[in-house]
């Protein structure tokens, strides 16, 4: 068995402080500490409280990445404090680290935030099994291993909120459900026992639903449990088409428009895609389009260079399509 050598280095911490009862504005306190390669971020929070300032407030409970309460931000990156090793943080950001709550604008006291919006969104996606199961069953309600795999680990989410407060859309569009809620919705949509008819429709609704996700993949990058909310979002899109609940709107036409374009040209017809997606609303794009046209950035449909061997592409579309809209 090899024994890793424990190393120590000096780290300067800039720590967010705020007490909504007495402060108008937040401020930052500096601490310099010797940090060992064995420590996790939560150890640092503990040491600030125990060695420096007993009034420093943060949430922790399990210390094993299970309760989901200790998520904060280090240099702007959401992390689960009890799971994230300090050596990784130093490797990422160097020896000057800024410790902040998941969302500074929701801060109540130091690292503690009001997670109300997170729970509201969570509740909005019917995060439980809707099934007509006999209350006194005579045998087990079995789910095959194959069907259970469909959940794709979505059931391992600990509701830590790291992804939700890393999502740029959550901050811009207050209706947006956010990645954790989508992962929860997927968890039940993928469950063979579930018979809810409304959830998938709700998460495909404009403004609040998956179509407003900008595909930045921040959620997948931060998730400490490897849930990959982004791929769950993709699956919710696909389910909406498969189950026939996708509405005919600019977002769905935009997705389907790619297929039409590829069928015709192999490559994308950019102008044609916007026209197909927007319909008559295309007029709002005219000023930008004109500007682009003047700069030689618009290729007319008849000038688009189609893919070579287009017949192959068309044949594959015929044989490999799995969805109809």
């Amino acid at each position, binding site marked *: 068995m090899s024994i890793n050598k424990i190393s120590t280095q000096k780290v300067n911490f800039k720590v967010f402080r705020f007490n909504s009862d007495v402060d108008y504005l937040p401020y930052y306190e500096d601490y310099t500490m010797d940090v060992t390669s064995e420590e996790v971020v939560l150890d640092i929070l503990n040491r600030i409280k125990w060695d420096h300032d007993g009034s420093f407030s943060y949430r922790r409970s399990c210390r094993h990445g299970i309760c989901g309460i200790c998520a904060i931000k280090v240099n702007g990156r959401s992390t689960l404090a009890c799971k994230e090793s300090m050596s990784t943080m130093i490797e990422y950001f160097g020896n000057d680290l800024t410790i902040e709550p998941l969302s500074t604008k929701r801060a109540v006291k130091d690292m503690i935030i009001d997670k109300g919006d997170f729970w509201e969104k969570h509740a909005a996606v019917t995060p439980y099994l809707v099934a007509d199961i006999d209350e006194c069953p005579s045998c087990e309600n079995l789910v095959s291993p194959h069907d259970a795999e469909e959940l794709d680990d979505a059931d391992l989410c600990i509701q830590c909120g790291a992804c939700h407060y890393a999502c740029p859309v959550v901050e811009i569009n207050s209706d947006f459900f956010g990645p954790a809620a989508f992962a929860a919705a997927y968890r039940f949509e993928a469950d063979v026992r579930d018979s809810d008819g409304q959830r998938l429709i709700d998460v495909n609704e404009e403004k609040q639903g998956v179509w407003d996700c900008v*595909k930045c993949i921040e959620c997948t990058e931060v998730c400490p449990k490897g849930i990959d909310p982004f791929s769950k979002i993709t699956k919710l899109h696909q389910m909406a088409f498969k189950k026939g609940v996708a509405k005919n709107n600019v977002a769905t036409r935009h997705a389907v428009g790619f297929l039409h374009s590829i069928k015709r040209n192999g490559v994308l017809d950019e102008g044609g895609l916007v026209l197909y997606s927007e319909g008559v609303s295309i007029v709002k794009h005219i000023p930008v389009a004109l500007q682009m046209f003047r700069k030689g950035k618009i290729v007319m449909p008849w000038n688009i260079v189609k893919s070579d061997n287009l017949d192959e592409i068309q044949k594959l579309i015929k044989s490999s399509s799995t969805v109809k809209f």
Partner: protein
Amino acid sequence: MKKLKYALFTGCTAKQSTPEQMMSTMAVARKLNIELIELTEASCCGASHLQDYDDFLSLVLNARNIAYAEKHGLTMVTICNTCQLNTAMTKHRLDKNPELKARVNEKLAEVGLEYKGTSLVTHFLYAIIDDFGLDKIKEMVVKPLSQFNIAPFYGCHNIRPSELQNESHKTPENPYNPTSLDDLIIACGGKNVDYEQKNKCCGFHVELQAPHTAAVLAGSAIAGATDNNADMMVTPCPLCHLKLDTQTKSSSEAVGREVSLPVLHMQQMIGLALGCSAAELGLKHNVTEINFL
């Protein structure tokens, strides 16, 4: 050094709304003596939108594109972040899952093709860094960009998900503290600008269905670069470029202030430093005025 040779997946944008990107890619390749074999058989990658509609079909089409690179026995080079994501994601999923690969190959066989998994898929930015070397670029610079503060805009689909992206190139990239584009700016003699939005999203993909969200993201990125004294921005992705370069009016409205900076494609920036002409680099196609030429 052995002459570098790649199979080029241009994507659709470089052939349509960003002709300057295609021109500058070829100009830079000529300067660096890199041979690019264009995959003219390739289809669109689906841009993550076809993926929302029909997952299997998008796998088949992307596998077909890669199969053509494999036929040449070459690494596939992409010049669009989103092409990179979708193509590398296809490769990753097929290489990890023999059953899925077999199902895809069953379809490809109908047109006499096979996906083997023998070609690497990498973005031109990383091909340059990994295979050509920034030191060599530095030596070849004839007109350093030393008078400029240049803000790198990485674009999500080249850096996230990092687990996938770091399979595609040797020089590891940290999505929270990326350095490749910064290093390239420095190699071209410019001063790299650090700002909060450099690894954030530009909003391009929801421009039609969520225009306000998209405009706020693009506007904040340009504002962030401006507030940190950038003279211009540079990006490896034609989609980021479209968003930042052609949509300044809606971006400005969304953030409540006038925002507008010249935005170069990474290839245009390299080309300038290597002494390519404005015409070769297609600078006249950039919408936001290139005010320093």
